[in-house]
């Protein structure tokens, strides 16, 4: 794919990711730790990773995190999103490289790391180790959301891949 095309798609993905982020912001979910999120925007990150490669996935992620925090988040949510987003992207890149997992598996790992990242930030912010008791809940929900997002992204990636390639350079 030509560079400009990639950039164009990246832009679209970034905008999409922000919408997902916003939707998540509207949902009153509670995991017990204030500020912990589901990570719906990760869906876009995964798709970007498999369609555009890791550099563009990182760019899309960062843009989404920064802008959405500015628009409807806070410094706190920025920290959470950064930690969760970057850690999850990193693990997804690593697992994708091994070629041993499908998109779903990679997404599961991403979801889990997303939550672990957020937990670590929470512990730092509160300077308190005791919230580690929420680890089981976060592991489980991270894996679950990861699996669901992964399941959704498999057909998405398949169909988009076809369409993107079909259009030619």
């Amino acid at each position: 794919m030509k560079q400009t095309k990639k950039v164009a798609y990246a832009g679209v993905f970034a905008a999409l990711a922000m919408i997902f982020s916003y939707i998540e912001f509207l949902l009153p979910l509670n995991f017990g730790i204030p500020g912990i999120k589901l990570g719906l925007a990760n869906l876009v990150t995964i798709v970007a990773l498999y369609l555009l490669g890791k550099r563009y996935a990182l760019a899309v992620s960062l843009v989404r995190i920064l802008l959405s925090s500015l628009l409807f988040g806070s410094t706190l949510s920025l920290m959470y999103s950064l930690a969760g987003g970057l850690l999850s992207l990193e693990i997804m890149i690593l697992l994708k490289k091994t070629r041993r997992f499908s998109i779903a598996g990679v997404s599961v790992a991403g979801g889990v790391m997303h939550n672990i990242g957020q937990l670590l930030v929470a512990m730092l912010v509160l300077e308190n180790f005791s919230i580690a008791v929420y680890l089981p809940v976060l592991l489980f929900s991270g894996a679950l959301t990861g699996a669901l997002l992964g399941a959704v992204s498999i057909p998405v990636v398949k169909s988009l891949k076809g369409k993107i390639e079909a259009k030619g350079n």
Partner: protein
Amino acid sequence: MLNNRIDEKKLKNDLLLFAGILLVALLAMLTIKRYRKSGTVCVVWLEGKEYARLSLLTDTVIDIEGCRICVKDGQVYMEEADCPGQDCVHMKPVSEAGQVIACLPNKIVLEIKGNNEYHSVSYLDVFDTVTTITAYTADAAEFAALSERIHNELMEYHKLYDIYHEYSGLYNACTLNREISGKSGANGNDGEKSADTGISLREAKKQIPEALYELLERSVEFYDLTGGRVNIAMGPVLSIWHEAREYGNENPDKAYVPRVSELAEAGKHCDLGNLVLHDDCSISVKDIMTSFDFGAVAKGFATEKVAQSLEKDGYTGILLNVGGNIRAVGAPPGGAWNIGIDNPAADTEKNDSWLQQASSSKATTDLYVTVVGITSQAVVTSGDYQRFYTVGDRRYSHIIDPETLFPADKVSSVTIICDDSALADALSTALFIMAPNEAIKFAESLDSVEALVVCKSGAILKTAGFSEYEVQGVTR
């Protein structure tokens, strides 16, 4: 074709990964649940530093930095907060150790802590004996505050019932004894006003501190209950033996046994009937030669008062050991406090305490006669090897039989278990003065009292219900 096989393998790996994560989550949850204990205190952290401690036992409301924290019915929750997310307010109330509510914008964390840290401290200045306080608290800071409170309360009683020293500004037992004898009444002008104190105890009434009056009241009860064996008016006789014992311990070669005539003369002034209790914490004393000695009851009484004040404030998981007077205030996390009753025949060095907290490593058969488990009871042992002195080859212990005016010699040790430490203290003295069978029979006649007697021969007698307290195979 090839793609399908690769895909299948990938899918298998996916499932393994998913299952693995779930397993880790499950294990983490089980470990956390296993150590989950109900909380006793809520620590409020502000910006990483401890700001306050709220006991879960008392309902409170505090406002910090825009957050309103509520403690109600043993649960903690955030009533209001000024943070935009309101996540902390939406959280369900917490009450178990380890649970947390956090308000990130305000940097406030409410952490529930339970009682699971073991702490112990000993003091040497209470009732001239070793006092050990053991408790399970949330942390060391809580234990320090708790033990200080207990120590201070015990010291109050120590000073009040001290018959050897007076303390400025405090009317205590020593003051009472002094006033009874009337300082300037040396010529035998009994009933005359003492120049120093300006009161007369013979005719008129004297109001004394409530806690001292209460002790006198209970002591009269004990006197009646034990047929006169527990007698706080034995001061005149006891002081003769006290002197002989002190002298005998300092000069073992010149140790002497007090003269019978001297004891008999002193014995004439040991009638507890000379003490008259009036309303309003007032007393009068008919015999000017009366002198009180609270050795048989003071420790137990003070221990019981302190224990009750702790219970009233909702404390649990504490074990008080005041020179062998043991009183449990609530059970420890393990379920019960294991108390080992020393074997008189064992060749161990004895301090004042016949009762030790049984550790799991000691072999129980030789060191202890038995081990009992208590949760809120009092255990007291009286033994003849506690305080004594030797003349020739004969031992003279410190518990004096009011009838013979000589040290009681019928048993080796007596252990009492009941709910009231003061009663246990008194009964252990009383039973020690009786013959073994008589002692057991007497204990059986009382409600909710269990006793164990170690005879001189080494034989052990117990009341019927005693074995219910015994713990089998303590080497856990």
